[in-house]
Structures are given as C-alpha cells and as structure tokens.
C-alpha cells in the first residue's frame, strides 16, 4: 500500500512519528511538499520505502536505521548523519558533510556533493556519481566511499580506517596520513557488484583506492618551505 503524505501543515516531528508508525510493515510512503525542510526521516527504524518528491534540507535520514529513502531533488548538508542502516538515494546533488559519522547503510548521490563527504565515517557505503569538494573522508574510521567523478584536495585527510575508491587521475590531491594502492581482490568483486547493482557502466579496473597509512599520524603544524636562494658571497 502506498501512503501519500502532504507535509503542508505537518511538523517534522509529527512526520517522523508517522513514518515510524508505518515502519516495519514494509509499506511505501510518498512525501509531497517537502520544500527542503530539515530533519526529514530522522530516527526512523524498520522496513519502509520513502519517496521524497522534491528536496530535503539538513539532516535528512539522520540516525535512520532501515528505511529505503529516495529523494528526487537535492539534500542539504549533513544528510544521513549518524545513520545506522537502510539507504538514501539522492537524484540530484547533496550539500556538504554528507554522511557524517555514519555507522551503516548506503548513501548514493547521482549528482555532486560538497566538501567533507563521509567526515568521521564509521561504516556503510557512500557513493557519489558526480564530483565532490575537498576533504572527503576526513578522519573516517571505517566504511567505504566510492567517488565516480573528480575529488577536491585533501581527500582522505587523516583517515583512521576504511577506504576511498576513486577513478585514476580523479583526485586533485590527497590529504596526509593515507596512501594510494590498487584494489584488493575482495574489493574488486565488491565494487563490481555495487556498480552493477546501480547500473553504473564502469569497470573496477578504472579505480584505485586510498587507505590509511599505518602507524602514528603526521600533523600539519610547521613545515618550512625553503626556497633555494643565492647566497651572498
């Protein structure tokens, strides 16, 4: 059964309670008139398909665990924050700080995303088909980020765990405390399956990966850049 919900006159808290009441029954909900409102589908757990007709604001799908959410438009900053499970598919673009501290589940953005995708990511998978800004995967602890487009500077800055997959030559510059390597066999298989599942006509061979550098991390404090100069005689 498909339930159509008009958000006009409905508070976010009331919406999320309604969704929670429907979750677990495997139903489908279509949300209209979302007008990029914040905190949509927050803390909803259980089986549920949610289709957002339009855009969502900040914190879309925060702390969510289970539902499959699609957004036809854009999502604002911090989508899928602290998400535990389920999926968020964004038809257009995502703001910055996509999936911060996400623990599990899948986030798929068809357009581009801002900076700091997967900040402090702990688990799950984040896929961005378009481009991303700087500092993707900063201090991520785990999980996987797959970048199909170009990535800004500082990618993988001070990663502690997890992996960032990107296409050869697509990184502007990687951050510190990570190293580029080829894909391991299990990663190749996993990536092939992911690409196939989402109809992305790419081959895992086109990708390489950033992983944390083992051992103690290096910090940016002071590093003189000494230019060669002619010494006075």
């Amino acid at each position, binding site marked *: 059964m498909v339930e159509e919900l008009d958000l006009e006159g409905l508070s976010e808290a009331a919406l999320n309670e309604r969704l929670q009441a429907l979750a677990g029954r495997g139903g489908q909900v279509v949300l209209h008139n979302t007008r990029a409102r914040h*905190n949509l589908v927050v*803390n909803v757990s259980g089986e549920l398909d949610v289709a957002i007709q339009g855009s969502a604001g900040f914190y879309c799908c925060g*702390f969510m665990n289970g539902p499959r959410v699609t957004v036809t438009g854009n999502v604002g900053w911090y989508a899928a*924050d*602290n998400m535990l499970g389920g999926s968020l598919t964004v038809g257009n673009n995502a703001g910055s700080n996509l999936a911060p501290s996400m623990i599990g589940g899948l986030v798929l953005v068809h357009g581009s995303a801002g900076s700091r995708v997967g900040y402090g990511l702990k688990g799950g998978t984040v896929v961005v088909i378009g481009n991303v800004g700087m500092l993707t995967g900063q201090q991520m602890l785990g999980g996987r980020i797959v970048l199909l487009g170009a990535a800004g500077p500082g990618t993988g800055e001070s990663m*502690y765990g997890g992996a960032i997959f990107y296409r050869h030559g697509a990184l502007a510059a990687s951050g510190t405390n990570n190293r580029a390597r080829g894909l391991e066999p299990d990663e190749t298989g996993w990536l092939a399956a992911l690409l196939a599942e989402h109809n992305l006509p790419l081959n895992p061979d086109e990708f390489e990966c950033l992983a944390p550098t083992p051992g103690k991390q290096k910090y940016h*404090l002071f590093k003189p850049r000494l230019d060669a100069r002619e010494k006075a005689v």
Partner: protein
Amino acid sequence: MVICDASACTDCAKCIKVCPPNALRFPGAVEAAPHMLAASNGSGPSGARLTGGGWASATVREIQEKARTGKHIVRGCGTTRRLPTLDDLVLLPAGLSRMPVDTYREAAVTRTVLGARFASRPLVIETPIMVAPMSYGAISREAKLALAMGSARVGTAMNNGEGGLLPEEVEHSYRQIVQVCPSRFGFSLRNLELADAVEIVFGIGAKPGLSGHLMAEKMTAEIAAFRGLPPGIDLASHPRHGDIFGADDLMVKLQELRQITRGAKPIFLKVGAGRVYEDVKIAAKVGVDGITIDGMQGGTGAGPVIAIDHLGMPTLAAIVQATRALEDMGLKDEVSLMVSGGIRDGADVAKALALGADAVLIGTGAMVAMGCTVCLECHKGECEFGIGTQKPELRERLNVKLAAHRVANYFTAMTNELVILAKACGKRDVHNLEREDLRAVSLEACAMTGVPFLGTDYTFTQPFGFFG
C-alpha cells in the same frame, strides 16, 4: 639536605611521593609559570629554582626537551599557572543584618534541577556537584566504574566523556549524562536512548579550541576497539562536529536531538572558557537547556602545555561572563549554568553558585579522591594508582569499591561544606547564595568579576548586577 644530581634526575617524582614530612616539592607545581619567571628575569614566586641567569629551571628543561625532540610538549592535568581563582573571593556571613540558619540542626536544600527550560524530564540530582566527563581511555575502566558507583551513592550525575559509553558505567550511575563529541567515538543512537541528559561538546577549558588527545600509551587494543580506531596511534581527535558547522546548524541539530529524545531529556552544551559572553548567548539563543562553562583551570588527560597554560579564561571570570550573558538575555532563570575547572571544595562550590552557577562539575578532584596525586603525567599512561592508565597490572591496583566509597565521601563532605557556608550566609537553599554574599579579596578578582573589593561596596570595573 638532599642534593639532587640534575643530570641524573629523571623527574619521576617518586622521592616526593615517599617523603614522610613532605619536604620535597614537585618541580611542575613549584615552578608554576616558568615562562613568567623567565620573562620577569626570575622575580617570580619564591621557592622556584632558578638557574644562574634568572631563568626558571623548568623553562630551561622545557627548552632542552624541545631542542631535543623538535616537538611541542604534551602533558596531563590542568594549568600550573597562578591565576585568580575562587579563593580570591570570600563569603559574607550572616550576623545582625541577616540571621544565620542553624548549621547542624535545620534542614537545607541541596537538590538541584537542571535543564528544565524545554525538557519535559529535567535532570534532578541531590547535590549541585556532578562528576565531570572523563573519557574511557584517558582513565581506566575501573576508575570509570568507581566514579559511577561513588556518584550514585550521593545521588548525582555521571558523564561519560569522549571515549564511548561503558555498559557498567550506565548500569551503576544514578543519572547518566551522555556526551555528543565531535569525534563520535563509541557514539550511536543507543547512547542517546540510555542518557538522562545529553551534552554537545564544543571544547574543554584545559585546551579550548583543540580536540581530544589520547597518547599511544593509552591506545590499547581494547580502547582502540571501543573507539573504532587503530591501536597504538597518538590520537588528536576530530576538531569539529561533522554535523554542526555553525550556530544555525546547531539550532536544527537541536531539533533533531529533541525529536530523538522526544523532548524529554535536557540537552546541554559544553564549551571551554574563551569568548564566554558570546558563546553563552549563542548557545542560549539556539535553544539548549543548559550550558557548561569549563574554565582555564580545568583538567585534561593530555594536551599541549602551551595550550593548557595560555588558552582560555580562568573559571572565576568565566562564571561572571556566563551569568552576565544569560541575565542580559533575560534567560538566567531558564537556562541552567554549570561550571567546572579547578573546583576543589565546598567553598568553591558556594562561590560558584553565588556567582550564578546552578551546579558544578569535578574532574581532577574526583580523581584525587580515588588516589591521584595530580602528577601531571597522565598522558603517559603509567598511573601507579590505576586511574590514568590502561595497563592491566596498574589497573589492578585500583580497588573499585574503596575508590567509589572515597568519591562518595568526597562529594558528601564537599556538599556538607557547601551547606555550612550557605547556612552561615543565612540561606536554607544552597541555590539562594547570591553575589551580594561575596566580596573580592584581591584587586584582580574585583576587576575580573565586578564583585566589590572587601571592605567596600565598590568595584572599579564593569559592575556585576547587584552593584550596578
């Protein structure tokens, strides 16, 4: 006289600890502000060891260490600088102008309600003294457990800190505050469900503007697994919340957290004392239920000495700034104000309350109650008392039951002291202590707080409420 061979001494401080008449002093404590001594060419507090040129020997040692390693120096505990403290204020007792309350026979109110602004289930504790958040990692599992058990005995709240929420901590605590730290180590929806109150952290007083530090010595496999990190790394954790990059976002984030906690649980915000007036105004404006201001004297498990000694604002000045901000907004009675940083006894608590705090939090003092000697070496993870360590053989040394008992005793004694002072000032409820009960004993404190100089009704800087 003992002669110290400076070339052989490793600064382990063992001799100081075992000296029966306490005749030896710990260098870090004696040379409170080596940089100041150096700057003033040795005209600092008496007792500091100075080298030939008037440079404090601690300064010389610091320079030697930096020259050797090329690194800034990291250590545990709060600042050793001499800063104005709550000791620079006194309470004016009752006499004829107001009558005292019978110290030992009349009942006094210590029960404290925090976070009643928007939360439908505010935090109710039996004393306005809480255990400050100290992360599992910075201190041992046994120490966390002892703090939870000890604080439960006096009916006050425990706060988990950055390193996740231990099941035994929740099980044994009376009321559990759960932190939302930028790093989100060991944090998930479950933590919010288990919390009696939530605290979003924007910094601590010992190193405001910096993130959490946990040195490799404490990053054991167990701690690393609990935090989701690789073992053996020196951790400088996440500096900013990945999901709060500004005050506007915080406002929306609060709505999210309120939805998750069904509007029942108070949401607090902790910040290290810096631009306190502005920070408090922003926090109150975005809608928190309570604010914790952690002053510059606050402790830490590890941090750069340069930050510990030079960043921030002393607790004394910070309380006044926070109170002033809430009063200027007309929100003093709505938003709970909690204060930490260098609070040691009932007098500190009484004065903090008189200046406008609703409750205080104790970190270092609670560790001292369990056996800590504030050795400043907490970052090394070699705590011989089993508190600031993760080594099993050292952790074994902490008798959890005894430590819990001592924490409970310390909190009880401190609350008794608070009650004694409040009654002497003519108050039946400790929360009725007010700034009019205070006078400053130093010009610095007078200038900093706006509390009149002792023996006068005057202050020569910005007045503070009653005396305005």
